[in-house]
C-alpha cells in the first residue's frame, strides 16, 4: 500500500513537467540523454528500495517527447527483470505519466505495455497497468483499433479476484467502451459494437457483447467498490454521449437499497440519468397491475432516498430531485406532504387523500392532544406508510439534521418551483419556515430562493409576517437578501404594505447602515403596489383634513423612506398627489434632485417644472431618452472634421447633455457616460491641435505644450477607462477606443518631437508607434473598412512609406494626418454598462480616529457594492493611500466577494493598515481599483484569431483604474509604549 501512496503523490507533482521543458533543451547538448542516465541508474540499483528511489527521483524530472519511447523501453526492460511489486508498480505508473507527454504518440508503446500483461501476477501492479492503459486510451480517442485492444484486455481481466483490477477494467470500459447502436443499420455499427470483433483470431472465447451489458453484470459484484465503479463506468458511458439502454433501470433501482453508501449515491445518479433518458416510458408498479411513467417512478424512488441513513446519499438525492423537471405535478406536490398515502397510482391528489385519512382519525398531526385515539379503521390495506412515494421528501429534506442536506433541498425546491407555478405556491410555506433555520447559510439560501420564485407568488399576511421577522436578524447579509426579496414580492393587502413599512422602519432605526438598501426596497414596494399604498397615504404623511401638521424633518431617513414609498406609488396612481400637503411637494422637488435614482418623475398638477429638462423628464420613459441619445450622437456625426468652426461648441453641449441624461436615466447611464467620455477625448484632441498654436515657435508656447501633453495623457487614461470600465462593448467600439488611443499616442509623439532635440530617442519612440499601428491593423482587420476616413485609415494608406521614412518626416506626417483626419463616429452597442463601486463602509463620516500602536496592524472593515464588474475576483483591488504618499494595493480574497444579484457583487473584506507613529490623527484614503491588462482582454476578445499574432509582452499594458469614490478614514498610529 505504501508504494501505491507514493505513486499517487508523485502523480500530482509531475503534472508540472511540460513547463520545465525549456531549460532541459539547453542542457541536452552537454549531457547524455535522459534515457541513458536512467538506464545507468537502474542498473546501479542493487535492491528494490534503491530502484524505487531512482524512479521517484526520475519522476520529478522532465522528458522530451522524442526520448519518451526510449525511456519506456528501458523502464520495461527493467520491469521484466524486477521481482519487487512496488518497483514494477512505480514503473507502470511512470509509463502512464510518460505517455501523457505533449506531442508524444502513445500508440508506439502500446504493444509493449500490453505485453506486460502476459507475465504479471501481482494484482496491484495489474491494476496500475490498467490505469496506464486508461491514460493511453484517453490520449488516443480516435483510434478504433487501439480501443478494441484495450477493451479486450479489460474484458480479460474483469474476472480478476482483486477488486482494484476489476475497478480499473470497468473504468476502462466506461471510458472507451461502446454501446451497441441498433439504429446503425448500414454496417457501421458492426465494428464498434463488437468487443474483440476486429481481432477475431484472439477473441475465440470472447463473446460478442457491448460494454453496457458487460458493465451491468458487475452491478451485482460482491465488492461494493466494484459495484460503485460499475455504476460510475456506466455514467461515464452516458457522459460520453452513448445511449444507455433502459433495461438496467430495475438493476439500478435495486442498487438504491445497497448496504454501502457510495453505491447508493452512485445509484441515485444512475436512476436519474435513466429518468432523463426515458422519461415517458412506462414501468409497472410491483405488487399491483398499474403503471407509471418512468420519470415519476424514479422520482418516487429518489425521493425515498432523502430519508436515507447516510447524509451523503441524502444530499445527492435532494440535489437530484431538483433536476427532475419532467415529473408529473401530483407527484411533485406529494413531496411537500408528509402524510401517508397509498395513492400514488391514482389521480387523486395527495392532499385530498391525506385530509380524508386525517378526518378518519387514523393518524394525528401531533398538534392536538388525543386526536390520535383510534376510531374506526379505514381500509388498512390501502394505507401505505412508506409507500414508494415521493411523499414528504422535501419535508424530510428541509428538516434534516445536516445543513448540507437542507441547502440541497432548498435548491431543489427552487429549481422545481421555477418550473411549476402551482408547486411554487405550495412550497412557499416551507420556504418561509426555512427563514427560521438555525444555520445562517440556510436562511440566506432560502431567502434567495424565495426571491427567485417570487414572480410566481403572492405573499399572505402571515407569511409576510414571518418573512419580516427576519429583518431584525443581526446578519447584514440576511437583511440585505431580505430587502432584495421584498423588492420582488407581491403582497395582497394594504395591511401587508403597512406591516412591511413598519418593519423596514424598525430595521432602519436598528441598523442605520441599511439606509440605502431600505430605501431601494421601498421604492420597489411602492412601484409594485400603488393601489395598496393609496389608502395609506394620509396616515403615512400624517396629513389631516383640517389641521396643518408640523412639517417633518427632511433629513430623517425614516421620513425619506416613507416619501420614497409614496412617490413611487404616486407614479402610476395620479390621484395620489391630491393628498399631498404643500411641504410634500417641496420635499418632492428636493428629493427628486438629490435622490433621483429613488424618486421617479411625477406629473404634478399646477406645478411648473424646471424648464431645461422637462422634455426628457415629462415623458420619462427610457425610449425617449434613448431617442435623445441617438439624436445627440447623430448630431455629432454631422461633424466631419474637428477643426470645423462650431464643432467644439457642439461637442461641449452634447457632452453636457449626455452627462445630464446619464444622471436622469439610470438605464442609459452607461451608454451616455461612455459617449460623453469618448466625445471628451475628441474635444481634448481638437483643443490640443488648435492651429494657431502649432504654428508658433516652440519656446514661445511652453504653456500650450504643457496643456497638450496633459491632454494627451488624459486621453490615454480615458481610453483605458473606456475599454475596461464598460461592459457590453463590441469589437467595433473596442476598435474605436484603440483608435483614440493611437491618436493620443501620435499626439504624444509629435509633442516629444517638438520639445526634444536630437533624433536618437525619437527613433525608438517612432518604431514603437509603428509597431502599435501594425498591431492595431492586425487586431481590427474586420473593422478597417469602417475606419477609412479616420486617422488610422489615412495612416495605413501611407503605411509603406511610413516604415521607410525618417523620424522627422514621420512626425510631420502624423501632425498633418492628425489634423486632417475626420471625426470617427461612435456607434453605440445595445447595452453599455459602466462598472461602478460604492464603498458603504467605512462611511468616512466618523471623526473618531482608529487608534493603534504603530508598527502593528489594524484591520479596517470594508464593505462595498460593485456593479457591472466582470470577474471581480481578479480585477478589483483595494488601494490605501497614506498622507505621506505611501500607497498599498490589497487584493481581496475570492471568498470576500458575494453576488447578491445579477451583475452585482458585494465586497466585504478587511484591509490591514499599518504605519509608523504620527503626532496626530490623519486621514487615509481608501479606494477601489479596477485592474486591467490589455493582453488578457485582447485574448478574450480575439480568441478566434491566430494567437501567434499577439505578442503579449508588446501590446500589454497593465494598470489600474480607480473607480468609485474614495473614502477617507481617520487613523492614528501611536508610538509603542516602552
Amino acid at each position, binding site marked *: 500500500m505504501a508504494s501505491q501512496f507514493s505513486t499517487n503523490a508523485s502523480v500530482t507533482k509531475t503534472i508540472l513537467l511540460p513547463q520545465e521543458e525549456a531549460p532541459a533543451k539547453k542542457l541536452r547538448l552537454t549531457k547524455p540523454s535522459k534515457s541513458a542516465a536512467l538506464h545507468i541508474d537502474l542498473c546501479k540499483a542493487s535492491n528494490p528500495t534503491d530502484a524505487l528511489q531512482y524512479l521517484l527521483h526520475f519522476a520529478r524530472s522532465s522528458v522530451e517527447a522524442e526520448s519518451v519511447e526510449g525511456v519506456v523501453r528501458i523502464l520495461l526492460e527493467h520491469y521484466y527483470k524486477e521481482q519487487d511489486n512496488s518497483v514494477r508498480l512505480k514503473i507502470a505508473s511512470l509509463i502512464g505519466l510518460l505517455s501523457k507527454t505533449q506531442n508524444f504518440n502513445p500508440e508506439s508503446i502500446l504493444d509493449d505495455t500490453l505485453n506486460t500483461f502476459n507475465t504479471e501476477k501481482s494484482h496491484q501492479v495489474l491494476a496500475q497497468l490498467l490505469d496506464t492503459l486508461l491514460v493511453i486510451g484517453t490520449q488516443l480517442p480516435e483510434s478504433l483499433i487501439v480501443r478494441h485492444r484495450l477493451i479486450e484486455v479489460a474484458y480479460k481481466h474483469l474476472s480478476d479476484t482483486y477488486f482494484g483490477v476489476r475497478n480499473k477494467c470497468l473504468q476502462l470500459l466506461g471510458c472507451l467502451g461502446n454501446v451497441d447502436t441498433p439504429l446503425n443499420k448500414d454496417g457501421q455499427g458492426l465494428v464498434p459494437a463488437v468487443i474483440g470483433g476486429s481481432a477475431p483470431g484472439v477473441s475465440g472465447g470472447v463473446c460478442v457483447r457491448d460494454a453496457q451489458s458487460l458493465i451491468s453484470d458487475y452491478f451485482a459484484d460482491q465488492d461494493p467498490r466494484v459495484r460503485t465503479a460499475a455504476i460510475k463506468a456506466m455514467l461515464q458511458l452516458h457522459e460520453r454521449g452513448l445511449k444507455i439502454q433502459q433495461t438496467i433501470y430495475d438493476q439500478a433501482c435495486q442498487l438504491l437499497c445497497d448496504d454501502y453508501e457510495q453505491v447508493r449515491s452512485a445509484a441515485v445518479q444512475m436512476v436519474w440519468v435513466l429518468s432523463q433518458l426515458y422519461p415517458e416510458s412506462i414501468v409497472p408498479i410491483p405488487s399491483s397491475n398499474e403503471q407509471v411513467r418512468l420519470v415519476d417512478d424514479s422520482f418516487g424512488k429518489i425521493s425515498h432516498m432523502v430519508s436515507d441513513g447516510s447524509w451523503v446519499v441524502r444530499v445527492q438525492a435532494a440535489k437530484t430531485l431538483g433536476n427532475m423537471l419532467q415529473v408529473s405535478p401530483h407527484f411533485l406536490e406529494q413531496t411537500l406532504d408528509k402524510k401517508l398515502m397509498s395513492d400514488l397510482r391514482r389521480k387523486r391528489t395527495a392532499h385530498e387523500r391525506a385530509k380524508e385519512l386525517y378526518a378518519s382519525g387514523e393518524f394525528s398531526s401531533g398538534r392536538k392532544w388525543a386526536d390520535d385515539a383510534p376510531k374506526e379503521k379505514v381500509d388498512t390495506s390501502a394505507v401505505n406508510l412508506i409507500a414508494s412515494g415521493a411523499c414528504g421528501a422535501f419535508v424530510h429534506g428541509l*428538516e434534516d439534521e445536516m445543513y448540507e442536506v437542507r441547502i440541497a433541498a432548498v435548491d431543489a425546491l427552487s429549481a422545481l418551483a421555477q418550473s411549476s407555478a402551482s408547486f411554487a405556491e405550495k412550497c412557499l410555506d416551507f420556504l418561509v419556515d426555512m427563514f427560521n433555520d438555525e444555520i445562517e447559510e440556510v436562511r440566506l439560501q432560502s431567502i434567495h430562493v424565495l426571491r427567485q420564485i417570487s414572480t410566481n407568488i403572492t405573499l399572505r399576511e402571515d407569511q409576510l409576517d414571518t418573512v419580516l421577522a427576519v429583518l431584525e436578524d443581526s446578519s447584514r447579509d440576511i437583511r440585505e437578501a431580505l430587502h432584495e426579496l421584498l423588492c420582488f414580492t407581491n403582497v395582497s393587502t394594504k395591511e401587508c404594505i403597512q406591516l412591511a413599512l413598519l418593519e423596514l422602519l424598525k430595521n432602519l432605526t436598528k441598523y442605520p447602515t441599511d439606509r440605502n438598501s431600505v430605501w431601494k426596497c421601498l421604492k420597489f414596494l411602492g412601484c409594485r403596489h400603488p393601489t395598496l399604498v393609496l389608502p395609506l397615504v394620509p396616515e403615512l404623511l400624517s396629513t389631516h383634513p383640517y389641521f396643518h401638521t408640523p412639517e417633518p424633518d427632511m433629513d430623517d431617513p425614516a421620513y425619506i423612506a416613507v416619501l420614497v414609498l409614496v412617490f413611487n406609488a404616486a407614479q402610476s396612481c395620479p390621484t395620489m398627489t391630491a393628498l399631498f400637503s404643500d411641504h410634500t411637494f417641496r420635499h418632492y422637488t428636493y428629493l427628486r434632485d438629490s435622490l433621483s435614482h429613488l424618486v421617479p418623475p411625477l406629473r404634478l398638477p399646477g406645478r411648473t417644472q424646471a424648464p431645461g429638462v422637462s422634455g426628457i423628464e415629462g415623458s420619462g420613459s427610457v425610449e425617449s431618452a434613448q431617442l435623445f441619445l441617438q439624436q445627440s450622437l447623430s448630431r455629432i456625426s454631422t461633424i466631419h472634421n474637428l477643426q470645423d468652426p462650431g464643432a467644439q461648441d457642439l461637442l461641449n453641449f452634447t457632452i453636457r447633455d449626455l452627462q445630464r441624461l446619464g444622471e436622469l436615466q439610470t438605464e442609459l447611464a452607461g451608454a451616455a457616460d461612455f459617449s460623453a467620455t469618448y466625445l471628451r477625448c475628441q474635444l481634448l484632441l481638437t483643443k490640443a491641435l488648435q492651429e494657431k498654436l502649432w504654428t508658433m515657435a516652440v519656446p514661445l508656447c511652453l504653456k500650450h505644450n504643457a496643456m497638450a501633453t496633459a491632454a494627451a495623457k488624459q486621453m490615454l487614461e480615458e481610453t483605458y477607462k473606456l475599454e475596461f470600465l464598460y461592459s457590453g462593448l463590441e469589437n467595433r467600439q473596442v476598435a474605436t477606443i484603440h483608435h483614440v488611443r493611437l491618436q493620443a499616442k501620435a499626439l504624444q509623439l509629435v509633442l516629444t518631437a517638438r520639445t526634444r532635440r536630437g533624433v536618437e530617442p525619437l527613433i525608438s519612440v517612432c518604431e514603437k508607434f509603428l509597431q502599435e499601428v501594425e498591431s492595431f491593423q492586425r487586431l481590427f482587420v474586420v473593422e478597417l473598412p469602417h475606419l477609412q476616413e479616420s486617422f488610422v485609415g489615412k495612416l495605413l494608406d501611407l503605411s509603406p512609406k511610413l516604415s521607410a521614412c525618417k523620424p522627422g518626416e514621420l512626425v510631420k506626417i502624423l501632425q498633418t494626418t492628425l489634423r486632417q483626419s475626420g471625426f470617427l463616429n461612435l456607434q453605440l452597442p445595445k447595452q453599455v454598462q459602466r462598472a461602478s463601486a460604492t464603498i458603504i463602509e467605512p462611511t468616512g463620516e466618523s471623526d473618531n480616529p482608529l487608534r493603534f500602536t504603530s508598527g502593528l496592524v489594524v484591520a479596517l472593515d470594508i464593505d462595498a457594492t460593485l456593479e457591472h464588474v466582470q470577474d471581480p475576483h481578479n480585477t478589483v483591488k483595494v488601494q490605501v493611500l497614506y498622507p505621506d504618499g505611501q500607497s498599498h494595493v490589497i487584493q481581496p480574497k475570492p471568498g470576500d466577494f458575494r453576488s447578491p444579484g445579477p451583475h452585482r457583487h458585494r465586497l466585504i473584506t478587511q484591509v490591514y493598515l499599518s504605519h509608523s507613529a504620527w503626532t496626530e490623527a490623519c486621514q487615509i484614503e481608501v479606494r477601489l481599483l479596477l485592474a486591467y491588462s490589455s493582453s488578457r482582454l485582447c485574448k478574450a476578445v480575439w480568441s478566434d484569431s491566430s494567437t501567434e499574432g499577439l505578442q503579449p509582452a508588446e501590446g500589454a499594458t497593465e494598470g489600474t483604474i480607480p473607480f468609485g469614490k474614495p473614502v477617507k478614514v481617520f487613523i492614528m498610529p501611536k508610538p509603542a509604549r516602552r
Partner: protein
Amino acid sequence: MPEIKVTPLGAGQDVGRSCILVSIGGKNIMLDCGMHMGFNDDRRFPDFSYITQQGRLTEFLDCVIISHFHLDHCGALPYMSEMVGYDGPIYMTHPTKAICPILLEDFRKITVDKKGETNFFTSQMIKDCMKKVVPLNLHQTVQVDDELEIKAYYAGHVLGAAMVQIKVGSESVVYTGDYNMTPDRHLGAAWIDKCRPDILISESTYATTIRDSKRCRERDFLKKVHETVERGGKVLIPVFALGRAQELCILLETFWERMNMKAPIYFSTGLTEKANHYYKLFITWTNQKIRKTFVQRNMFEFKHIKAFDRSYADNPGPMVVFATPGMLHAGQSLQIFKKWAGNEKNMIIMPGYCVQGTIGHKILNGQKKLEMENRQTLEVKLQVEYMSFSAHADAKGIMQLIRMAEPRNMLLVHGEAKKMEFLKDKIEQEFTINCFMPANGETTTVITNPSVPVDISLNLLKREMALGGPLPDPKKPRTMHGTLIMKDNSLRLVSPEQALKELGLNEHQLRFTCRVQYRKTEFTIFIVFSSSYLVKAWLVLKGYTIQHLPDGTVMVESIVIKVSSSAEEPNTKVLLLSWSYQDEDLGSFLSTLLKKGLPSGLSSM
C-alpha cells in the same frame, strides 16, 4: 432450535417503568430499569420477583443496559441493584452516567423528603449503584464477556440517549430505548446501520401519529407563547428537567433575542444549572449547529432565561415558566399550576406525552374540575394547549428506523396497546416481518436461524475454484465436497485427504464391482461393442474422458469396464464393471445401462 426470548417487565403495552428482559444465546440481559410515574405504590417499580423469588439477581443477569436518563428508564436502578441486589455491570453512555444520579437524587428527595415514604433507596445507594456503571461510547463495541457484545448508536431523544445492539454470535437484538428520527434544536436524529438484527425492540409512543414538520410546530409554539405574553398572561410549560426543556429554552431564547422581548423567562428548578452544565460539556452529543457554533457561543449559555424562585409565581405581569415535572403529577409545576389555573388569561402548554393518571393527562382530556388532595377541587380556567414536542419517533420515524436496520422480527414496547395494534398491522403489511407486542410478563419467543461459521481450508477452496470456472456467485449456494472436522469447539472444513492425515487414518478405497454375463458370443460381442459405443457416445456428450487401454479395457474416469471370457463356460462372456465410491453416480448409471442393453442380462455383485 436456538431462540431469543423477550419478556417485558414494564413498558409492555404500556408507557412507564421500562424494563425488558432478553435471553439470547444463553445470556440474560435487562434493558432499562425504570419507574412508573402514575403509581405511588409497589407498581411503580418493575416486578423483579419474576426473575427470582428470593436472593440476588446477579446470577440471573449478565448485564443491565440503560438507554437514557429519563426516570421511566432508569428510576428503579438503585432499587434493583442495591435493594433487590445486583452486582453485575450496568452499561450506559457517558452523559447518561453523568446526569442519571442527579435525577435519581431528585426523585428520591421528592419521594422521601416530601411525601415521607420510608423503605426507599438512599443517597448512598444511588452512589453505590453508580459505581457499578460501565460507560459506553457511541459505536464502540464492548465485550461484556467472551460471547456477549454490545454496541451503542445515537438515538436523539435526550442528551446521551442510545440505542443498543446486543449480539451473541450471529444472533442479535437491537433495543431502541426512546429515540427521535427528526433532529431538533439541540439534538440530532437517531441513526443505525443496516445491522439486520433478529429482533428490533422499538418504542412506539407515537404509533398512530405522523407529526407535521417540526418547523410548523415551532412556529405554533412561539406564536402561542407570544400571544399570551402580549396580552399579559403567564405561560406555564411543564417539562422534565432535562431533554425537551433544553430544546424549548433554546427556541424561546433565540426567539426572545430576535423579537427583543422583555417578559422574563424562568426555569424552575435548581437542576437547571447542573443540567445545562452537562449539556455544555457533552457538546459532541448535540446537533450539527451547536457543535459548529459552540466555539463562538455555547448555545446553552442562556441570556434571557433566569432561575425561578417560588415567590415569582405571584408576581404580576406576563412571564414564561418552565417547571418540573413534565406531567404535572407532583412538584413545582403542579404548585404553579394550582396558582395559575384560575385565570383564563394564562396558558399551560404541555409539550409532551402524559401518562394516564397524571393531572397532565386529565387536563389534556378536557377535565375542567380537578380533585386535589384534602378533597379540594380546582377549577381549570386557563387555556390548555398541547404541542407534541416530545422527542419520540412518530409512526413514520419508526418505519424509517425499520427500513434502516432491516430486522427479521419486530417487537413493540413503550406504547398504548390500541395504538400498537395499529402499527403492528402496518409493519407486518409493509415489511412482511413478524411483529410482536407482548404485555408485561408475557414472553415472546423468536426462533432464530443463526449461521454457524466454519473455517474452510484455502486449498480446498482453491481446488473448488479451479473446478468451477468463473468466480463463485455470491447469490447462489454451491455444493462442494469436504470433510467437516469438529474439534476443540471449532468447525473446520478441509479436504478428505487432509482430514485423514490429521486424524492419522489410512485411506480406504471403496470400489463397487459388478459382473455382467453374456451367453451367446457373437451376439454378445456386438452387444458389448454397441453398448460401450452407446455408453461412449453418451459419456462424450457429458464430457467424461474415456480411455481405451491396450488389453481391451475401457476406462471411464475411475470406472473400469473389462470383457473377459470365463474359463468354465467358453460360451459366456463376462463383462466386469468396477467403480470407486466417488463415481458412484456414474457407475450405477453405467451398470443399469449395460444391463438394460442385454436380452437376458444376469448380474451379480
